[in-house]
């Protein structure tokens, strides 16, 4: 049986003097999965993001959640200084400013971008001390090695912003690199990696070759939730994501 949970969110809005008659708006709903009566089951928990510059911060990355579901986001500016605000944006499009004490609650589609995939095809024989540098990692061969050995070496290395895997198959000469984030858009030098200006740089003293090709063009997600604080001094934003 699928896990479910019951989460209720209620909203009321009232004023006795904004109009000539009192206003009292109420709404309450159980947070359910898309097109379902089952409750949303995942949550980030109640968290706080503290900012210390007026840079834009990404609060939730769309790539990390299932797109086009029934996710909900709660935000609150914890500042007590009336002039301090967070500009809330959907990617780079402004939604609005949350001033001190303001809260917000809204659905989020978490529309994914496309993660870039590139291939590195190796051939011939590599010599001792040949290197491949990518994403801040420099991999050095311990001895003269086959391309298969080099493919395995590259595929098992951990990279900060990419995952690597052997392409598989009998030839085993190709490493596939997949970006961890669709907003990680590199401008690769396609073709030979034996150039100093590419994102992948191979230093080969034997007769080996390394060729870079793009397998999937990356498309940045346009649905990340971002915040921009109004001041560089410390500000805090409370947040929850409830998702499926």
């Amino acid at each position, binding site marked *: 049986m699928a896990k479910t949970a019951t989460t209720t969110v*209620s909203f009321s809005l009232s004023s006795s*003097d904004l109009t000539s008659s009192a206003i009292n708006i109420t709404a309450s709903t159980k947070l359910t999965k898309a097109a379902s009566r089952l409750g949303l089951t995942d949550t980030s928990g109640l968290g706080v993001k503290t900012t210390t510059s007026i840079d834009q911060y990404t609060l939730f990355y769309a790539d990390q959640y299932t797109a086009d579901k029934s996710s909900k986001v709660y935000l609150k500016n914890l500042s007590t200084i009336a002039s301090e605000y967070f500009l809330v944006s959907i990617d780079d499009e402004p939604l609005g*400013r949350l001033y001190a004490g303001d809260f917000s*609650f*809204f659905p989020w589609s978490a529309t994914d971008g496309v993660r870039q995939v590139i291939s590195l095809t190796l051939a011939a024989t590599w010599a001792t001390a040949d290197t491949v540098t990518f994403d801040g990692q420099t991999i050095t061969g311990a001895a003269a090695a086959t391309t298969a050995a080099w493919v395995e070496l590259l595929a098992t290395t951990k990279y900060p912003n990419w995952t690597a895997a052997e392409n598989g198959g009998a030839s085993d000469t190709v490493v596939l690199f997949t970006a961890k984030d669709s907003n990680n858009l590199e401008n690769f030098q396609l073709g030979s990696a034996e150039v100093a200006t590419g994102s992948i740089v191979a230093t080969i003293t034997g007769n080996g070759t390394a060729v870079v090709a793009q397998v999937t063009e990356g498309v940045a997600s346009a649905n990340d939730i971002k915040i921009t604080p109004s001041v560089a001094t410390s500000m805090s934003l409370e947040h929850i994501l409830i998702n499926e």
Partner: protein
Amino acid sequence: MATTTATLILSSADVTGHNFSMTQTATLTKAASSTGLDEFTGITSRKYPAAQTDTVVVADSIYVYDGAVAHKVYIRNTSIGNSDYILVELEGNVIVGRLYPGDWMFIPYAGTLDIQVTTIATNVSIEYGVFSQSTVS
């Protein structure tokens, strides 16, 4: 000066391993001010006989927008059932999210882009309203 108060209560006994209940209250004030918002559209209630595509529910041209504003928008899908969602977008196909029947949202609004809705079914019902400031702060 008007005083308008918004309250949100979020609670669950089982979405985490612990009971969770949170109540938040905010007084709706103008930007960088303790003066209350002074304009309200009223709550518009509509039932769309046909599916809608990018139908404007909040037109940015009506609101001041030079940055220092603290407008608020409330939207609720008042339809019955499970599946007839309302896709809320900002002008230019900037997708915010889906309001399924009963779901509501309450957001700050910069007044720089229209707020639009798209529906996929007939007879989808919606209510919405804007609390705003008449001049920038």
